């Protein structure tokens, strides 16, 4: 491979990181939405796009994914604090934020991401055969694995209001309303997922973006709405030169994240959230620091690790939105392309980590100057505009339905994780070979 093409690819990847760092400032925006938007622009300027080496565009997207996976949680951490009424189910990084330690939490997560980047670029090339074998072993069993994940999600729901009812009956009802609503959210999300997979209403030209309005509606818009009405005040943040962690926290956090990240990257339909919860149980991980580090590792392994499987000799697995978008114009073939992509991940990862500290400080300073509610409101308007542009009014309708469902966990204090049934249920049923039959019961086929 020519040195010139390598240099151009590096520049394209760094441009991707730079753009990802800008888009990552918008809480709730997902990198796959940005990639979809990029692809629409690329297809609109098809003549120009066709003259470019597809490797360059691939490396640009790789830079976007790497930059985003390292940086995107920073804005969510700083700009989307939860309301007081949600403290009982607050995530660790939110507690850190309210203690003035948001920077430390973001850097702990960054250290987790760094482990994953080192693993993907430094270790993966030596274990391509093993990953290929693992994939072949998992492949026929995915449907029941996803079934067990669904069961885990349902069984791990717990009542969060601590028996404030006056009578036994009231206390029982309080508990079961939350559990019941978790179950309701799971079932309805699953039905919505089946509908989108079988019979979407998105215009056919952009039907490959069917999941975009659903995901924005289920997750991004409700988060932003809750942030807009939140009454929290973010204290001034302290910029620590070290993190409160012991070497065993790094090791166990990274191990938990690795198990969760690999699990989610090799299993279609699974996202790092439930995978991390399960791996934390499996590795007996404990404490907020290990959870945050594990989260950083799992997230990067899920986004980048899953994408790198697409380029890996012996595997060539198309997993996740980024790989699907890249496969529209590029088919990986040779080992030299895999070496190039691994190098690009390392360069983009180094650039993202280099940015991380300053990026966190910038976000922390922004919280002191701009009300985080305005940021979420702006983000929400931008997301709705993007859904409208990409998927027309039909997508906005679909997003509205998904938003209504996505608000249910906020009203009834259940977790948001059952919403992932939107992916888990249809993928599980399709893998089991009964997806079409079940969809026909609902009149979707």
């Amino acid at each position, binding site marked *: *491979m020519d040195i010139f093409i390598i240099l151009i690819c590096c520049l394209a990847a760094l441009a991707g990181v730079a753009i990802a760092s800008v888009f990552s400032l918008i809480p709730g925006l997902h990198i796959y939405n940005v990639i979809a938007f990029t692809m629409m622009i690329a297809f609109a300027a098809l003549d120009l796009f066709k003259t470019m080496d597809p490797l360059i565009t691939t490396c640009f997207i790789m830079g976007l994914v790497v930059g985003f996976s390292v940086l995107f949680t920073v804005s969510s951490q700083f700009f989307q604090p939860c309301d007081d009424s949600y403290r009982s189910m607050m995530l660790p990084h939110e507690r850190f934020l309210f203690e003035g*330690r948001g920077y430390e939490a973001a*850097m702990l997560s960054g250290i987790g991401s760094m482990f994953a980047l080192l693993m993907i670029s430094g270790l993966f090339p030596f274990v391509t055969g093993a990953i290929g074998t693992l994939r072949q072993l998992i492949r026929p069993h995915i449907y029941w694995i996803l079934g067990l994940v669904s069961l885990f999600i349902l069984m791990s729901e717990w009542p969060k209001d601590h028996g404030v009812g006056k009578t036994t009956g009231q206390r029982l009802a309080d508990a079961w309303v939350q559990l019941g609503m978790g179950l309701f959210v799971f079932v309805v999300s699953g039905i919505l997922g089946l509908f989108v997979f079988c019979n979407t209403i998105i*215009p056919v030209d952009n039907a490959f973006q069917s999941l975009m309005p659903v995901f924005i509606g289920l997750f991004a818009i409700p988060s932003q709405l809750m942030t807009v009405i939140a009454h929290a005040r973010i204290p001034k943040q302290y910029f*620590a030169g*070290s993190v409160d962690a012991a070497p065993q926290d790094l090791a166990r956090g990274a191990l938990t994240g690795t198990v969760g990240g690999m699990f989610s990257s090799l299993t279609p339909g699974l996202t790092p959230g439930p995978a991390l919860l399960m791996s934390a149980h499996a590795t007996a991980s404990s404490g907020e620091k290990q959870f945050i580090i594990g989260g950083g590792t799992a997230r990067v392994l899920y986004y980048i690790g899953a994408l790198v499987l697409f380029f890996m000799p012996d595997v060539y697995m198309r997993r996740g939105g980024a790989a699907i978008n890249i496969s529209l114009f590029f*088919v990986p073939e040779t*080992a030299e392309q895999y070496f190039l992509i691994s190098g690009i991940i*390392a360069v983009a990862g180094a650039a993202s980590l280099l940015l991380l500290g300053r990026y966190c400080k910038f976000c922390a300073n922004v919280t002191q100057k701009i009300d985080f509610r305005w940021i979420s409101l702006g983000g929400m308007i931008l997301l709705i505009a993007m859904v409208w542009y990409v998927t027309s009014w039909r997508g906005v309708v679909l997003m509205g339905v998904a938003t209504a469902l996505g608000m249910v966990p906020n009203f009834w204090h259940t977790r948001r994780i059952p919403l992932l049934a939107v992916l888990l249920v249809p993928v599980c049923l399709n893998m089991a070979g009964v997806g079409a039959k079940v969809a026909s019961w609902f009149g979707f086929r």
Partner: protein
Amino acid sequence: MATPEIPRCCPSCGKENPPDSTVCHFCGASTVERISLKIVSLGIVLLLAIAAAHFYLAMSYAPDYAAIPSLTPDRNFERVRVKGRVADVQIVREAYDHHQVRIELEGEGGGGRYSDNRISVRLEGEPANDFLSNPGFLNRGDLIDVAASLYAGDNYRHLSLSSMQFIRILEKGSGAPIDPSAASGSRYAPAAPAPKATVAELLADPEKFRDQVVIARPLEVVEVPEALPFFRVSDEGKPEPQLVVIGYKGELPAVGDQISVRGKFIYYEKKGYWEIQVRDWDKGAVIVLTDGTSE
């Protein structure tokens, strides 16, 4: 053994603690057992070193080319990478929806038309269309690198290419350029004469026309759904029966237009109805009929 110095201000939240507090009284963080953020800088250096190693490997990578004579039936379905010179290119237009490009590739050392040092590289569907839309891409005599799947058995042997990306020109040859438009057969017409029929005739005995290229006329457009890639037609002046026309990429006719449609009459099993499927390259597939127009 020296005791570690305990900072008064918490290194995590910056608030001042009583002397000798190993745990912050405000945020609960340890003031002594900590990891410096210099670990991130170390990670960045390691990543850059790994990147340099990968780029070196990419630059020094030598493909493992398979010799053309070694592509025997016992390697059937194998993914192989072959290097050779373009001896000839044939463009075969077999039917309404089939183009095939055959690149005759000769391994180093030559050997002539019937030697085992020669193999056909075949492109069908999208790769063939991409090839045809790039006139001048290949010259006879070009040295090319091809990554493709081998199909080999008794008395046949060829490579099947899944994308044009897998042809890389290593050295331009001095032979005559290949002009796809000069190949035999008309590009925008079906290979065989298409039977003419009305919608009523097609649906009265659909099996008779199944999978055939037909010309249906005169038809009337009854519905053009927004943002969907099909429209509905019926026989002129009769609202029923209707047929779906799918796959036309040109400017869509308006409701009420009288048109003629050329396409393949197929049964759409998923939804259970018959339709006329038009190929996107067939520019004359849909003709709006004005008075006296004939296709």
